[in-house]
């Protein structure tokens, strides 16, 4: 261990001790991260991390910072160590942050998923589930934990992948929030046969979709008479259909979906 590593190690321990102390004192329910730290971390992230990791934290292949799961760290101390020392053999460099910045970055990483969560009022997840499966008719298109059709995006992990704010916008006005990866496409073959589905992947010459019968289909663009990417989502906008309380409840339910582990 080099001298600088020793110093880093001491710093991590000291910061962790501070964090743990605060956990008991001030944040019994919501976690050890203050909004102020998260805000500081968000600013640091935007200037230092976003170039490689992207604003959504998932631009480095195999790394999704927003998921709350880290490939090389199981606790905040290890996260801090990675930030300060980098990851050898990868493009992740070592950073020099003040203690406040480092605490902030960790706080932000731990709360990226729910950052901007203030936009979504706290709802009742149990009630949200009832609406999702009943009057909202969400489950007629979306699959959750192995149940439901596959044409619309599977929502089993949506609580890990999207912020509350993003989920709420997707429910209220899907056209403003639909992700690029969930575009529907319509292709007409030379013989007139039409294939519709959700796009899974695309390049200059081909497109891969899951069609309405849930088959995986790969099409060569040169074989198509027509190919349309449909930017308007088939999902209805629930604003006006569901009450604001209903929407909050659905959002609260979706935030509980973090995959089966």
């Amino acid at each position, binding site marked *: 261990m080099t001298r600088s590593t020793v110093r880093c190690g001491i710093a991590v321990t000291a910061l962790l001790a501070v964090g743990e102390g605060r956990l008991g004192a001030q944040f019994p329910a919501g976690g050890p991260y203050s909004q102020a730290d998260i805000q500081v971390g968000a*600013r640091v992230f*935007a*200037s*230092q991390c*976003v*170039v*490689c990791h*992207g*604003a*959504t934290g*998932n*631009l*480095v*292949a*195999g790394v999704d910072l927003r998921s709350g799961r880290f490939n090389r760290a199981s606790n905040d101390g290890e996260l801090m160590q990675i930030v300060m*020392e*980098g990851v*050898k*053999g*990868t*493009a992740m*460099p*070592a*950073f*020099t942050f003040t203690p406040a910045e480092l605490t902030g970055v960790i706080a932000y990483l731990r709360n990226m998923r729910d950052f901007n969560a203030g936009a979504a009022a706290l709802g009742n997840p149990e009630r949200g589930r009832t609406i999702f499966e009943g009057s909202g008719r969400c489950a007629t298109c979306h699959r959750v934990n192995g149940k439901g059709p596959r044409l619309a995006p599977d929502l089993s992990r949506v609580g890990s992948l999207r912020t509350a704010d993003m989920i709420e916008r997707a429910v209220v006005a899907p056209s403003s929030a639909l992700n*690029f*990866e*969930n*575009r529907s496409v319509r292709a007409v073959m030379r013989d007139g046969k039409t294939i519709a589905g959700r*796009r*899974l*992947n*695309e*390049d*200059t*010459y081909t497109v891969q979709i899951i069609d309405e019968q849930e088959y995986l289909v790969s099409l060569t663009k040169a074989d198509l008479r027509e190919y349309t*990417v449909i*930017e308007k989502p088939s999902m209805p906008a629930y604003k006006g259909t569901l009450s604001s309380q209903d929407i909050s409840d659905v959002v609260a339910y979706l935030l509980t979906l973090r995959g089966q582990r």
Partner: protein
Amino acid sequence: MTRRRFAALLPFCLATALPCALLAQVSSDRLLRAADEPRNWLTYSGSYMSQRYTQLREVTPSNVKDLEQKWIFQAQSLQSFSATPLVVDGVMYVTQAPNDIVALDARTGRVFWVYHYAATPGRICCRGLVNRGVAILDDTLFMATVDAHLVAVDARNGEQLWDTKVGEAKAAYAMTLAPLAIKDKVIVGVAGAEYGIRGYIAAYDAKTGKEAWKAYTIPGPGEPGHDTWPADGWEHGGASVWTTGSYDPELNLTYWGIGNPGPDFNAAQREGDNLYSDSVVALDADTGKVKWHFQFTPNDPYDYDSTQVPVLVDANWNGSPRKLMLWGNRNGFFYVLDRATGRFLLGRPFTKVNWASGLNPTTGRPILTPQPPGQPTFPGPAGATNWYSPSYSPRTGLFYLSAWENYSTVFAEGARVTYKEGQNFTGGNLTQTPGTAAMPLLGRGIINTWHEGAPRGVVLAIDPATGTRKWEFEMHDVTTSGILTTASDLLFTGGREGYFQALDARNGTLLWKVSVGGEVAAGPMSYQLDGKQYVAVAAGHCLFVYALR
């Protein structure tokens, strides 16, 4: 030479009935005339003019569809395969990231020897542990390493001849470029601008590894241009060098593109033009003295490194023969310079640009139009183009480059940052342009569904006389591939989608494509053996080699 290596070499010599003496010395005279022996590929860009153009013409627009894979070399490395191989009289020399040199039979891909360089442990090399290839002079190969050493290796047996420290690895000096051998010297430059290095280009005696000259890319006290930096800024101002330069033997000038100033994005922290960041410098090849410079982006807030390969062209300009330099810059402008004087001749955007409304017609200095806070700047920080090798075909008279269209980012000055050795030294506050898809700068996964509103890759053919587009070939995804053109008017390139494709260099028509299953982030090259033309390109973690059936 070890017995094992000798044993490996012997059957090759017998089987091909070629005496080993054919592994002739690559003299500096041969390097001067590299373009005239198209069966070989003797420098990173194919010749000192760096046109990445081959005089070979066996593969043509009409038979290119008959190309088939002849062999594949699978690198024992999961780093990006960014190298262009050299081929010398039947032997290929390619680097396996980060710093192995592999000598192969260019007919079969069978390996003669592997030289492994063990880089200093530690945090090294900001943008990935990559290497773009080797240089050769006489019987010696030269490789620049990620921990900023220059090594010389015997081309016949892979034994190390010398190892010279070029920069301090623990201060984040690194090298990823292929060196350039000129006369009796080997020239390299150092990377690490994001870590507060002070960049330089340096030449080493090819026989001994002793430093011959060193040219800082940030002038020191008393030197012209020093006053373009704040007093506390020049020592860590970046201005790195990470792509290979070019050389004009008549002028005895070697040309190198210089990277961004540091701290990146925080232009206000380093008031002044910040010479020679984002510039091209012309150096006396014997002394390293700066003969002239031209700066593309003064006081750069956008990370517009000018680390493109300088493409040298002898052509008529306004009716008179002239020594030109063509440059598709990361800042979105295409430039034509007089390479004897550095005089600006022409500049025009080759894609959407809004950080400048144009260039001063006399000086080429940009007329700045900084965007209001929160508004996107075109192009974004990965640039309208980048390190990807361009090409120039003397037959078509066109300049070809890989570019990103419709690419922007919202930039903002970040908090003041303080230098600390070996640590990240960047400022800025970058956010995605609202309503666009997230844009990975350095490669991405294998799923691509984010393109609506996001940039696309294009191959552009630019007429140097006017700076206008002659044609374009649009891809779904962005591209980081270099370009090769041939004397049969073919253009070879790839992209992030994992295709390698041939276009008609005259009009951009797609003539052939093959799946290589991984990103092409290197420049293709061509060579000839037994009268047969081969085309080679690295993609993913492999080198693919094609020839006609």
